[in-house]
């Protein structure tokens, strides 16, 4: 998986209530959610995001609720990948489960500035920041998680394996 796009940058502790406020959770329509993505933190986000852009943030990205609407809204808004110093754990697994690529790279998140151009190659395991002239190595996902991603998300994998039985 390879992406290229410009950086849209935020700080630490970006929570799920600002990614998608609860007042919009009475729907799960992806394009509807995308319209309100980041609204309470940055009302200009939806007007300036372009397909392929990369969201870059600080520590504990996606903290707060378990709403999968958060990674869904980000993905549906056109963001190709989120890079952060660290991710909150439920957001991390939700992103993997729904197929929103995420990368933990404190160095890259530190250096990147608004509108920098990034190239990300998940298979080869690197990020290039063209404006800074820097390359960062990224850790590949553990094999277990790669399998979920390769299967096309958790449900695609589950579909193959599921044999529902009533047991106790």
């Amino acid at each position, binding site marked *: 998986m390879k992406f290229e796009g410009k950086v849209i940058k935020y700080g630490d*502790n970006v929570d799920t209530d600002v990614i998608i406020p609860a007042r919009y959770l009475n729907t799960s329509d992806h394009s509807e959610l995308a319209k309100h993505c980041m609204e309470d933190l940055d009302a200009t986000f939806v007007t300036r995001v372009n397909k392929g852009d990369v969201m870059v943030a600080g520590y504990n990205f996606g*903290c707060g609720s378990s709403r999968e609407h958060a990674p869904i809204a980000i993905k549906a808004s056109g963001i190709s990948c989120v890079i952060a110093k660290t991710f909150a754990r439920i957001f991390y697994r939700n992103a993997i489960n729904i197929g929103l690529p995420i990368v933990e790279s404190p160095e890259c998140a530190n250096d990147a500035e608004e509108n920098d151009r990034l190239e990300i190659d998940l298979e080869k395991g690197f990020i290039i920041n063209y404006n800074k002239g820097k390359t960062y190595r990224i850790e590949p996902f553990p094999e277990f998680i790669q399998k979920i991603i390769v299967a096309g998300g958790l449900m695609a994998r589950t579909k193959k394996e599921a044999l529902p039985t009533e047991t106790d």
Partner: protein
Amino acid sequence: MPMTMTQKILAKAAGLDSVKPGQLVQAKVDMVLGNDITAPVAIHEFEKAGLEKVFHTEKIALVPDHFTPNKDIKSAEQVKRMREFARKMGIKHFFEVGQMGVEHALLPEQGLVVAGDVVIGADSHTCTYGALGAFSTGTGSTDMAAAMATGEVWLKIPEAIQFNLIGKPSEWVSGKDIILHIIGHIGVAGALYKSMEFTGDGLEFLSMDDRFTIANMAIEAGAKNGIFEVDEETIKYIQEHSCKTYEVFTADNDAEYLKEYTIDLSKLKPTVSFPHLPENTRTIDQVGEIPIHQVVIGSCTNGRMEDMRIAAKILAGRKVHRDVRCIVIPATQRIWKECMQEGLFDIFVDAGCAVSTPTCGPCLGGHMGVLAAGERAVSTTNRNFVGRMGHAKSEVYLASPAIAAASAITGKISSPDEVMK
């Protein structure tokens, strides 16, 4: 390899003799939970994958609590979808309005979770059941969908941080003050990916309601789960509420903890968390003059019977300040009924409070008390993020029911001592 409480429960659920931190396992779940926000997404994924049967009709709980009784057409459609799915799949634990409550108060009360269980819920505060000595954690809707189909979930074995609670808390220090103190100390990512394990002699002074409140907010420190050592109090609670068989897991003496904190409960003061992060805590003597417009007493954090009793004790014979709306929401039908039988509603209504049927409502800015721009609320809930309770320019201060009730009377953030003279 020595293991923590959490590691032991997960090893068993994964069918392994032992596990170590960082290991990825596929674990069997004893209960899968979803609410009216997350379950519809899970149901969509479930149906899209062409699945036709759930793994177990009695190990799934569907609780419409966030926007119920439905506040608008869209939320009514969401719950309708849940209801129809529950009927079609034969899911036993679907809680209709009239039986429902806020999910994390409801499940323990209904005896659906006991010590040793593995519970995943598509709601971040699923970590509440750690109070019972269960492993429980919040996940997303896709995890819920997969678990409804297979009865399993993928999990990474967490490292643990130990909190050794000692001493007896003073009169107005409750579970809420203890957990706010801890989050203020370690920060909102202080336990990121970790389990918080609570132990120590101080547990004997903590009621089950206190423990539920503490475990509830483990997620606010970034934790995967919070878990309490099981004692007589836990066993008593389980036996009174459930007929499920439970299993008590204790940490090995030489289990490894990433960090160990000892917290002397006798030294803690009532604590308030300032906007817009739960870690922005101040003790009540450091709060200063903060006028407020609304008080909310309820939620999965503090909507239980003890919380209602303490609020009533402070509000009895007093009046809510004329600039304040005080909204009281017992978390479940059973708690509601108990409040009624104990005469607490007389106290609340005479004081000028509005009492609501169980719902999450204002906690997430859904309905039943949404804030306008510039308004401030003292709330017994668990999150004070930007816009959490309404307008992005409103503010939420997190506190115990005692502080919330006292503040409702004075119109500013106050210690119960100020009104209980």
